[in-house]
């Protein structure tokens, strides 16, 4: 890593003191400005979550809450945040599990029985490229007919449909990197196919399964259009709860911020933890080719 940056950007030795140092400082300054721009709206929301009601609409706004409070979290939970988190958890978890159950065997078949990047996996992936507004009309009409409108099962099906192509594709790519010789060895060791699957393949695929699960969970957690269209008052996922609360009531920014933080916080932390691994595997793999 450092070798690469050195060859790229460290100028000849004579200049290193003047231009090099200024350049480095300048780069970091620009990057810090960018980070501030990236985080500002979110951080502002975070600050707002701790403001009491009276302080929300003061103009000009206070930078830090004068009387910080946790009351927004409790209130936000009871006005729909708790319900939203519960429903989102049910739907996202179920669809993720379904995606993995359907997706892992399919991914294995794609990885082992078909040439890399074959026609079939391309077709599967292109399903994902559909703008959700296209299938959502069909889903709506179909769910009305089947009585799945405003049901957990309906939304779980929709999210599984949305995420399954990606899960299959990610897992197939992962399994392709597992050397075949482990499976051959297990067969020679006398393991029947299913036993090989459980003893060898599943444990070796664990990191790939984790990645696919987290991504699928996240997409379902953040998704809005499907839940807006396909559910009514019975199932209210978190994004829908937030949108309803925001649009149809006097916006209480403190409570909105509180729900938003509770909803996004765990996910963000998980992503930060995973990112290192994701980015690294991403760059290493591509560099290795």
């Amino acid at each position, binding site marked *: 890593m450092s070798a690469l940056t050195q060859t790229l950007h460290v100028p000849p030795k004579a200049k290193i003191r003047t231009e090099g140092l200024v350049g480095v400082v300048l780069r970091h300054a620009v990057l810090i400005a960018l980070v501030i721009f990236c985080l500002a709206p979110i951080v502002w929301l975070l600050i707002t979550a701790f403001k009491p009601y009276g302080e929300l609409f003061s103009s000009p706004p206070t930078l830090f809450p004068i009387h910080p409070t946790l009351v927004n979290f409790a209130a936000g939970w009871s006005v729909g945040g708790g319900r939203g988190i519960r429903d989102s958890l049910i739907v996202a978890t179920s669809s993720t599990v379904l995606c993995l159950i359907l997706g892992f065997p399919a991914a294995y078949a794609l990885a082992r029985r078909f040439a890399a990047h074959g026609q079939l996996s391309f077709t599967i992936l292109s399903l994902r490229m559909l703008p959700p507004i296209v299938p959502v009309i069909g889903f709506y009409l179909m769910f009305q007919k089947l009585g799945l409108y405003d049901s957990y099962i309906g939304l779980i099906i929709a999210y599984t449909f949305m995420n399954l192509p990606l899960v299959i594709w990610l897992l197939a790519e992962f399994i392709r990197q597992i*050397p075949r*010789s*482990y499976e*051959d*060895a*297990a*067969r*020679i*060791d*006398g*393991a029947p196919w299913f*036993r090989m699957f459980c*003893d*060898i393949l599943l*444990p*070796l695929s664990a990191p790939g399964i984790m990645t696919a699960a987290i991504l699928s969970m996240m997409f379902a957690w953040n998704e809005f259009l499907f839940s807006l269209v396909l559910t009514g008052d019975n199932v209210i996922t978190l994004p829908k709860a937030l949108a309803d609360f925001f649009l149809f009531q006097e916006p209480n920014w403190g409570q909105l911020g509180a729900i938003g933080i509770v909803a996004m916080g765990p996910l963000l932390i998980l992503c930060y933890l995973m990112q290192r691994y994701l980015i690294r595997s991403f760059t290493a793999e591509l560099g290795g080719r």
Partner: protein
Amino acid sequence: MASITLDHLNKWFGPSVHAVQDVNIHIEDGEFFGLLGPSGSGKTSVLRMLVGLERPTEGQILFDGVPVQDKTPQERNVAMVFEQNALYPHMTARQNISYPLRVRKASRESIAHKVAEVAALLNIGALLDRRASQMSGGQQQRVAIARALVRDPNLLCLDEPIAHLDTLLRARLRGELKRLQRALGTTSVIVTHDPIEAMTMTDRLAVMRDGVLQQVGSADEIHNRPVNAFVAQFFGLHSMNVLTVESCVDQGSHIAGRLGGEPARLPQTVERFFGGSRRTASIGARPSGVIALRANEPIPPVDGFTAAGHVYVTEQLGDAQLVTVQIGDQSIQCLTPDLYPFEIDEPVRIFIPDDILFLFDNDTHVTSRFASRSPLDEVKAARVSAA
């Protein structure tokens, strides 16, 4: 333990790839057998059919005379050591070794007993609780061998088991594997692309090329009596020189030779070989038998092949020098004792005594005449006379 017969074995991948073409081999009970060939020669396909990872498209595999080609690896009771990734990375060495027994639902006591026994045999007792990532390549390969042996297999297959290790370790493991195989008497088949590995470890071996079996025999037989130019060139410490010689008749009945466009003196046997209407032939000689002569050195007074050229490159091998001589458009290597080093571009003549010369039919590449003497015969004779 079993004797193994491959009977008219064929393997097709798809309609166009004939990976293994009508291979017939018999391997004796307890024999250490080698399958040698360059990559793509079909040797690995043969091995995979032997252990039951692939089904033969045609032909039979017999263990002690019983056809097994429809049986699973477990029913055949075979074991295999892979080139790389031989161990399950998420298991410890102990779990790896015991896996075949656990799959066979052996009792806990017998598993512990067998694992301890085989670990002692391979001297890996201290490694049993480590995972693959905590072991060196050599240690991993030992554990893999232990996992193979723990089930007392009828047949032990080794797929390039030491090819990726470093040179010193490879040499040591070669010897260890050979001793181990002797001690256990398990019928074993090793696949390798390295002639030295094949020569040093096995009792007998088969040379394959493009899916076709070329020759089966002991290392000595294959080295001294290669059936064709391919085997001659592929097998041995140094590749055999195979040169195309042309004949041109001049001055009546005397036959003059040409090598790479340059005039060459032919030994009488080659002249006789040319006697008919033949215009070209291939001669072969191992580098250790080719003598490079300086311009002022006389040609030895025996029958042989002579041609003149210049040194293309010299390679220092420590106690010897490998000299590549360019003659016209052909090159020839000779291994000379490092008494007086040759220089690049130095004019030289090469001399090959008639009795170490091989002759190959230029159309079929089949050996027409074997050398009657190995270059090492003098050494042998010296030892015999010393004794």
